[in-house]
């Protein structure tokens, strides 16, 4: 963690300075205080998108438990925040509220405490012990993308298709202005992957190919870090696969294909009474509701081809549903770089505060913000990383993996960036850093690469320089690296 924390530290200093300047302006001071506190907290990852696009299902799939949607009698919370805690708790309008699990999510039951409360922000907070939520706070939000971006450090934009209507929404969500507009905090999830082309068996594959094509489009690449095809329904069902479900699936898979195939043609046929004798009709309806017809077909195919234990079946279902790809993208582009993303959103907030409450001191702070953002190599690093991952930019094959490693794609510590083994000595590290810098200097200034690749090489070179700087600062060779 070298440069990422450096950026966070500088942001923190700026925020502290701003908080001092605005100590007499209550609204601005409150915003800044909350921002400073958020800077140290987990990454806030919002799941936004049009209605009925599968946001809550995706949240459940990511957490691995059926915690979404949240039901609240009489009202519908605009946002539900899921964060880690020691025991399940729920808050609604800043007051604790009893929470209970239902068959498909959570139910909050407001009592007398909430009637007196003024209707403020329509936001529920669910505290749930979960390993997933430890470093990432999930926000299931019905807010439009532009407002979701304000409330979170990173956003998953869930949409059935990435149509022309979504492009303006993504454009406005990129950021206020200047270099902060780099969309390092946006990822698009195409959520109808299982229904592509009428829900054929290869639907998920086709959808993933289409998503790969989309993420290579420069127009789309300029709007987000990644485009992924996911079937939230299958993913959520796979994450929470029960023994009963596994049994039903294996029983159905055991039937001869000729017998089961006609009943997999449509939902009506699959749910019809008196057919597919191993599982009764209500059981099949439950399966249908949990997996969807595409999910059932996929599960049966997987069960026939080696998915013979619940763990293996669930694993392979998750893989096919696209959840694994999504998780790895979130881990590589969001969670690992959470200090950058948090610093970025904090800077955006600070920029907004400085522009809305003009004071003589604000001009100086604003200049400092601009300087910091213009200097933030981390944002460029992230963009290059996503371009390399998506294939929008291709470096020569022998350098591609090296570049991704140096940019922090495999971990952001010095050791991980340089690909050192944990027990490497300081001298080895020095040597590796110097070699990498020399290699990339040759590439950047060698004149053999096309312009776009040369620019990429310059960015990698800058990363090498930062590693060297950091090593310089760690003057004591006994200090453990990484």
């Amino acid at each position, binding site marked *: 963690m070298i440069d990422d924390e450096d950026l966070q530290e500088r942001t923190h200093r700026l925020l502290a300075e701003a908080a001092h300047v605005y100590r007499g302006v209550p609204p601005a001071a409150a915003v800044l205080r909350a921002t400073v506190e958020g800077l140290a907290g987990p990454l806030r990852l919002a799941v936004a998108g049009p209605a*009925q696009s599968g946001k809550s299902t995706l949240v459940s799939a990511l957490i691995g438990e059926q915690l979404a949607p949240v039901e609240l009698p009489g009202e519908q919370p605009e946002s539900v925040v899921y964060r880690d805690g020691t025991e399940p708790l729920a808050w609604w309008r800043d007051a604790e509220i009893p929470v209970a699990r239902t068959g498909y999510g959570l139910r909050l039951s407001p009592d007398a405490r909430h009637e007196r409360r003024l209707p403020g922000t329509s936001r529920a907070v669910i505290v749930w012990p979960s390993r997933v939520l430890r470093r990432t706070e999930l926000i299931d939000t019905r807010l439009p993308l532009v407002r979701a971006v304000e409330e979170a450090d990173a956003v998953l934009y869930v949409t059935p*298709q990435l149509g022309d*209507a979504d492009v303006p929404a993504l454009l406005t969500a990129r950021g206020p202005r200047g270099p902060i507009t780099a969309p390092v905090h946006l990822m698009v999830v195409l959520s*109808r992957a299982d*229904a592509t082309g*009428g*829900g054929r068996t290869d639907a998920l594959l086709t959808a993933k190919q*289409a998503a790969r094509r989309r993420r290579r489009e420069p127009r789309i690449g300029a709007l987000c870090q990644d485009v992924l095809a996911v079937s939230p329904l299958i993913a959520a069902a796979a994450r929470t696969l029960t023994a009963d479900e596994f049994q039903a699936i294996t029983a159905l898979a055991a039937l001869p294909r000729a017998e089961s195939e006609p009943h997999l043609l*449509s939902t009506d046929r699959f749910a019809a009474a008196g057919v597919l004798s191993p599982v009764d009709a209500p059981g099949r309806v439950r399966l249908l509701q949990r997996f969807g017809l595409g999910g059932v077909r996929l599960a049966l195919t997987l069960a026939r081809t080696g998915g013979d234990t619940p763990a293996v079946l669930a694993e392979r279902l998750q893989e096919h549903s696209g959840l694994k790809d999504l998780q790895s993208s979130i881990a590589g582009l969001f969670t690992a770089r959470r200090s950058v993303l948090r610093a970025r959103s904090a800077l955006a907030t600070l920029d907004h505060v400085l522009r809305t409450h003009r004071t003589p001191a604000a001009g100086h702070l604003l200049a400092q913000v601009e300087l910091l953002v213009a200097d933030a190599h981390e944002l460029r690093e992230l963009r290059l990383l996503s371009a390399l991952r998506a294939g929008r930019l291709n470096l020569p094959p022998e350098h591609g993996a090296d570049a991704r490693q140096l940019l922090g794609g495999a971990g952001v510590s010095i050791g991980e960036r340089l690909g050192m083994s944990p027990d490497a000595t300081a001298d080895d590290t020095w040597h590796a850093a110097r070699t990498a810098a020399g290699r990339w200097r040759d590439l950047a200034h060698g004149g053999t690469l096309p312009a776009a690749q040369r620019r990429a090489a310059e960015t990698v070179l800058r990363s090498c320089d930062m590693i060297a700087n950091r090593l310089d600062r760690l003057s004591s060779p006994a200090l453990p690296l990484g």
Partner: protein
Amino acid sequence: MTNWETGPTAYPGPVSLAPPPRVPSPRTEPDPLRASGALLWLDVLDATIRTCTEHGRTETAEQLSRRRARLLHPELRVLVVGAAQQGKSQLVNALINAGVCGAGADGTRVPTVVRHAGAPSAQLIRRGAPGADWTAEVGLQDRIPLALEALDAAITEATGRLPAGAPVHAEVAVPRSLLAGGLVLIDTPPLPGPTGPAGQAVRDAGDLATHAGADLVLYVCEADRGLSDPELTVLQGLAALFPELLVVLTKTDYAVDWRRNLADTRDRLARAGVPAATTAVSSTLRLHALQAGDTALNAESGFPDLLVHLRRMVAAKPGALARETVGRLAGVAVQQLAVPLRDKLAAQRDASVPDAVARLHATQRRLDDLRKCAVRWQNTLSDEIGDLMSDVEHDLRDRTRAVLAEAEQFFAEADPAKAWDEFEPWLRRSLLELAETSTTWLAERTDWTAQQVAGQFPAEAGAVLPPLALEVAGPAPDDVVPGLDAPPVARFSPTQKLFIGLRGSYGGVVMFGLATSLAGMSLINPISVGGGAIFGGKTIRDESKSLLKKRQAEAKTIVARHVDDVFVHLNKEARDSVRRVQRGLRDHFTAVTEDLQEVIMDSLRNAKAAADRDVAAREQHSRRIQQELAALAQLHAQLVALNGRA
């Protein structure tokens, strides 16, 4: 043999597995009733077009004319529209059992018109303008033949050669008995989502349907979700143009709760007032069924119902469908025409008093004002003149009295015989001065009076003061103040003095002589003579004093008489002057009043005429609007009757 002619359904029998339609084709059995019906709807449509043209709605008229041509055409063009990835192309493919429309993850880019022909063919049509009719004939250079084997790729390749954004559509002809009845299916690119301002999506959909020459719009929506609110708005907009809407929920094979969604959609359409037929189908099942020749599966797919409905529509096109379409379109057009007319009528009724009438009222008010003003100024003039008369007399009397008092004081001391020459010019001067002052004062008062009277006129009359100060000056001052002759003076001559002296001395001589005679002196002695002289001198002094008094009294009398004469004369002159002034002012202001009255009467006449004209014009205008509205109402009644027959 093309690729879609192979397979189990390549036989030239009916494409659908549903029983053949019982409704006979319109061309095989001409129906006299329907023919007359056709004439009726055509008449009404023509009448509507005429009315639109008369009202200057050429655009609407043109649209209606186009629809008229479409309605007379035997083809039934079904436009398949919907959002992206809803299964539109798949629906068309399943309907005709041929892979003519590309159904993939990328979605349809180029609209495809599918119709019947003996031999399969495909071409890309380049339209002249985005707003051009799809049915319009295009030249040979705008028809690009397409390879049938890989239609999707061929279309992509052909459009790639054309400039970006050129309005194109593909025309595919396939031998299908379903299409042979005149059914034409049009697959379209997805409707743009509700990104723009509200109403834009509705207009876009309406434009697309109009330009494509659609007779029937088939709205496609996934059975997984049912209709969304923006889609419902689009359907409402389309319902205004197309009486027959068909909402088809697709992918029922994949949706879990499609029956509930279908019921929900029907409910929402009914609540939104959209008269659309609804059905749910599964293209996948239909294609499976056709491949396997599975009748039961085909029935499950829901397509037989859809096909029956489409065939019924084809049969109904020259009759009921055309009637309803005309009823809907003409109804919209008539409404469009009637609303502004009604607004105009209402605006005219509600409008405040028009200008002309307002002007008339204002002029009448001015005339009244003038009449009041005439009475006022006459009163003012007579009052002022009366005051002036008394003031002048009083003033003159005052001044003459002062002169007289001074003269009397003068003659209390002075001897008229000696001072007359000094007195007479003074008196003359004083009196002249008096006359002059009085004249000036009178002139000033006259001016003031004129101003007072002029002040009674309304401001709008302008400057009404007499042009010059009226002649006040009387006759020449010499005439007013004649010279005054000295009074006759009683002369006291020496002889008289001697005689009076002697007469007075006589008593003295005798008194003193008698006294002295006692003393023995003679009667005439020096003492008596001296006494006589004293007595004589006293008598002479007394006598001359009394003479002076007499002269002074005489002079005073004469002066008083003179001054009185002058006063009478001056007074007379002043009164004459005042009368003259009065007459002059009266004449002047009467003339002014008459002039003003003339002007106002004139404008009153004008205003009255204008108001009359205006009222007439308005009445005529509203009569015309009413007539037009009546004509529209009649047209509307015809429309209602038309639909009543349907």
